[in-house]
C-alpha cells in the first residue's frame, strides 16, 4: 500500500509501528556490537513495560476520557499472579519464552478480572470521583499484596493472608508479604517486550478504528448523544477499562520478571502518576507520544545518574520544559511550518521526478 493513498489515521499508525520497529532494530544492533552500557541494558525491559503501561493508560485517559489514578494497581495484580504462575511453570519446563508468554497471559487475565470487579462499580462515576476511587483501588491492591503469603511445595500452592501460616512442607515461598516476590525466574527479554508493545499497539489501533472504538470515543465526546444513537455506555466504558487493565497486567509480568525480587510498594501511587505523566506529556490519545515520553523519561534518570545529587532536579526541569514546549502554540506553529516546508520541498522534488519520468 502506498503511503499517499492511505487515510490520515492509517498513515499515522504505520509511522508509529515503523518507529517502534526501527528503534528495536537499532537497539538490537547496538546490543550485538556491544555499544550499549550495561546500565542502559538493564533498563530495556522496564522501558518496554512502561511503554505498554503508558499506551494502555492512554486508552483509558485519552480515548475513553476518564482519569484513572490506579493504573499501577493492575500492573501489580498482573505481576504477582503472573510471576507465581511463572515460578510454578519454570519447575517443570525450561522453555523460558513459553513460560513468560503463559505467565503474561495469566497476568493479563487476572488483571482483566480485577478490572471488571473494579470497573463495574467505578464506571458508574465519572470525572474527579472516578479518579479518586481508582486511586483508592490502587492502594487497596497494594495493601492486599503486602499481606499476601504464597508458597509452593510438593503438594501445590499455599495461600494465606497471615504471616507464618503457610503450613508448607519444604518447597519455597513465592510471595512473602511485605518482602514481596522473591526468587523470581528472570525470564524477561527485550524481544518479548518489543512483541508485547507491537501486540498492544495493534489491538489499540484496530480497536480505535472500529465500531467499538468509535463508540468509546463517542461517549468521551458526548454521553447523552451517544445514548441517543443507541450506544450502551456502560458496556463500552467497561470494555476500554478492562482491555487497558489486561495490558497493564501483562506489562506487570514483564516488568517483574526482569528482577529477582519485587515488592508491592513498587506499584504504588507514584508509579500510577509517573505513567500518567507519560500519557499527558505524550498527548492524550496520542500513542506515539506516549511511547516517546515513556522512553525518554525512563532513560533520563539513568543518563543523569552521573549528576548524582542534581539528578532529580534536572529531571524535574526537563519535565517542565518539555511540558511548556509541547504546549506552546508559537513553538508548535513554528514546528508545523518547518515541517510543512520540508514536506513541501520533498513533494516538489517527487513531482519533478514524476514529471521527468513522463
Amino acid at each position, binding site marked *: 500500500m502506498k503511503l499517499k493513498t492511505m487515510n490520515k489515521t492509517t498513515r499515522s499508525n504505520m509511522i508509529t509501528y515503523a518507529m517502534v520497529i526501527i528503534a528495536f532494530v537499532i537497539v538490537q544492533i547496538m546490543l550485538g556490537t556491544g555499544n550499549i552500557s550495561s546500565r542502559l541494558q538493564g533498563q530495556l525491559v522496564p522501558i518496554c513495560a512502561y511503554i505498554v503501561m503508558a499506551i494502555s493508560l492512554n486508552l483509558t485517559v485519552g480515548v475513553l476520557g476518564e482519569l484513572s489514578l490506579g493504573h499501577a494497581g493492575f500492573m501489580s495484580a498482573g505481576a504477582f499472579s503472573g510471576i507465581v504462575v511463572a515460578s510454578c511453570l519454570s519447575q517443570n519446563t525450561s522453555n523460558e519464552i513459553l513460560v513468560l508468554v503463559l505467565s503474561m497471559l495469566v497476568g493479563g487475565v487476572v488483571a482483566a478480572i480485577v478490572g471488571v470487579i473494579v470497573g463495574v462499580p467505578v464506571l458508574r462515576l465519572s470525572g474527579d470521583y472516578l479518579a479518586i476511587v481508582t486511586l483508592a483501588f490502587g492502594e487497596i491492591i497494594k495493601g492486599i499484596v503486602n499481606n499476601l503469603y504464597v508458597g509452593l511445595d510438593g503438594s501445590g500452592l499455599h495461600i494465606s493472608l497471615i504471616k507464618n501460616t503457610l503450613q508448607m512442607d519444604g518447597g519455597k515461598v513465592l510471595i512473602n508479604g511485605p518482602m514481596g516476590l522473591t526468587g523470581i525466574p528472570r525470564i524477561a527479554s527485550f524481544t518479548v517486550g518489543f512483541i508485547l508493545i507491537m501486540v498492544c499497539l495493534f489491538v489499540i489501533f*484496530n480497536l480505535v478504528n*472500529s*465500531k467499538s472504538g*468509535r463508540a468509546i470515543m463517542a461517549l468521551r465526546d458526548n454521553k447523552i*448523544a451517544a445514548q441517543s444513537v443507541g450506544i450502551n455506555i456502560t458496556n463500552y466504558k467497561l470494555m476500554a477499562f478492562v482491555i487497558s487493565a489486561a495490558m497493564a497486567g501483562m506489562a506487570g509480568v514483564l516488568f517483574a520478571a526482569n528482577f529477582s525480587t519485587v515488592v508491592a510498594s513498587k506499584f504504588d501511587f507514584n508509579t500510577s502518576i509517573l505513567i500518567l505523566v507519560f500519557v499527558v506529556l505524550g498527548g492524550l490519545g496520542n500513542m506515539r507520544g506516549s511511547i516517546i515520553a515513556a522512553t525518554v523519561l525512563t532513560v533520563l534518570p539513568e543518563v543523569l545518574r552521573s549528576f548524582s545529587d542534581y539528578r532529580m532536579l534536572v529531571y524535574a526541569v526537563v519535565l517542565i520544559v518539555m511540558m511548556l514546549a509541547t504546549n506552546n502554540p508559537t513553538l508548535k506553529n513554528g514546528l508545523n511550518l518547518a515541517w510543512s516546508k520540508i514536506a513541501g520541498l520533498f513533494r516538489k522534488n517527487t513531482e519533478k521526478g514524476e514529471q521527468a519520468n513522463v
Partner: protein
Amino acid sequence: MSKMIPIPSTGYLNERDIGKAPILEATHLGIEFGGLKAVDDFNLTVGRTEIAGLIGPNGAGKTTVFNLLTKVYQPTHGTILLDGKDTHGMNAIQVNKAGIARTFQNIRLFSSLTVEENVKLGMHNHTHYNTLEGILRMPRYWQEEKRTHERALELLHIFDMEHLAEHKAGSLPYGAQRRLEIVRALATEPKLLLLDEPAAGMNPSETEELMENVRKIRDIFQIAILLIEHDMQFVTGICEGIAVLNYGKIIAKGTPQEVINNPEVIRSYLGNRRAIMLKVENLNVYYGMIHAIKDISLEVKRGEIVSLVGANGAGKTTTLQAISGMLKPKSGKVSYLDHNLLATPAHKIVQYGLSHVPEGRRVFAQMTVLENLEMGAFISKDKVKNKNNLDSVFEHFPRLEERKRQLAGTLSGGEQQMLAIGRAMMASPDMLLLDEPSMGLSPLLVKEIFKIIKELNEDGITILLVEQNAKQALSIAKRGYVLETGKIVLSGNAADLLENDAVKKAYLGG
C-alpha cells in the same frame, strides 16, 4: 384513539396514513420535578408519515416532552406507544433501537470525531461485527466498514455534505453541525425523528433549504417527523399538524391554519404580530442649549428587530435613554403598549417588560457573574421563573455558566456584553433596548453577539437595536431608521436600507 388532526380536511395526509396505525401515541403523559408539573396530561398522536410540530413559549415544556419520549427522563404518568408497543420501562438506548431518534437544541455532536465517524456512530446498532472481529480485522470488518462508509456518504448526500466527511465535526459551521445531527439521527434508522429547533440560528435561505430537506427526508425514508421550532414560517410551512404547549399543557391542536387563528394561541404565544409595542412621537431632547434630538418619531411592532443606525453623536443613545426614562425629553410622547413611559419612573418601566442594556455594558464589576444575573431578577419574586430565566440565559451564553463564580470586572469585553444582555433577560422582558452591543468587540465576537440577538428575537423578544455597525445591525433587522445629527433621515425595510446608496456611502463604506 384520536388522530392529531380530527377532521379529514384536504385529504392528502389522511389518505396517506389512512388505515395505518399511528407511529406514536402518547396518552396522559406527565412528569413532575419536585412537585412542579413540567408536563401534564400530554396527549399526542403522530401518523406514520406525518410531519408534526410542537410549539409554545419558552419554558412551556417542549424539550421536556422530547426528553420523555426518548426516555432521557422517565415519565411519572401516562403511556407512550411507539408503533403500537408500550415503551414503559425502556431506557434511552432501547427507545432508540425501537425507532425514535432525535437531535438536540444545543447541538450535541461527537465533536472530536470526523463527520463520517459521527454518521457511522449513528449506524452503530446496524453495523454487524463484534469487537474481536474489529481488532483482528476479519473479513466481516472490511465488508461492514465498506458498507457503512458508503451508506454514510449516501446519507450525507441528502444535505450535500459528502465533501465534509473527513472534517472534524466540531470544526463545522453552525448550520452544518445542525444538519449533521439530523443525518446522524437518520443513520439510526428511526421510524420517528424528533428535531429540536432545527432552524435555530439559521438564516432565511438556510431555513428555506432545511424545509425542503425535511420534506425530502420524510418522502425518501417514509418516516414521521415531530419538530420543535419557534420560526413560525418554518412550522406553518412544513407541518401538517401542530400542537401548542403552554405551562406543560396542550392548549391547542390542529392544522397550521387552525392553530395560528386560535385565540388562546395568539394570546399566550404568537401575540398580535401586528400590534405596535413601542411608539415614539415627536420626541425632542435638549442638553442645555443643544437640541440633541429633533422631533423624532418611530415605532416598533411585536416580534420585530428594529435597528437605529447612525454615526457617532447622531443621538442614538440619547433616544434610547429617553425611551427608558433615564433622561427627560423636552417634549414628545413615548408609549409602550398602553403605558405612557414619560410619566413612568425608570425602575417601573422594567416591570412593564421593557429592559435597557446600556452602552458600555455597565456590569457590576465587584459582583460575581451569578450575582449580576440575580440583580437582573431583582423585581421578580417568582423563584421558579427566575430559575427558568437563569437556565435560559446560560443556554444562550454557555460561557457565563462556566464563569458564574468569577467577578464580573474580570470578564473580557465580549463576556461583559453577554452578561449585560443576560442580566436584562433575567427580568423576562418582552422587549429589549440594546445600545451598541458590538462596541469594542472582535469581529468574531460581534458575529456571535448578533447571532444571539437573533436567537433572542426568535424566542419572541422584540428588539430595538442601536448600532454603529450599520451593516450587521441592518442585516438581522426587519426594519431600520437612519439617524443623522438628531434627525431621522431615512427609514424603511432593513433590506432596502442596506441597498440604499446614501446609506451605503455614509455608513457601509461605499
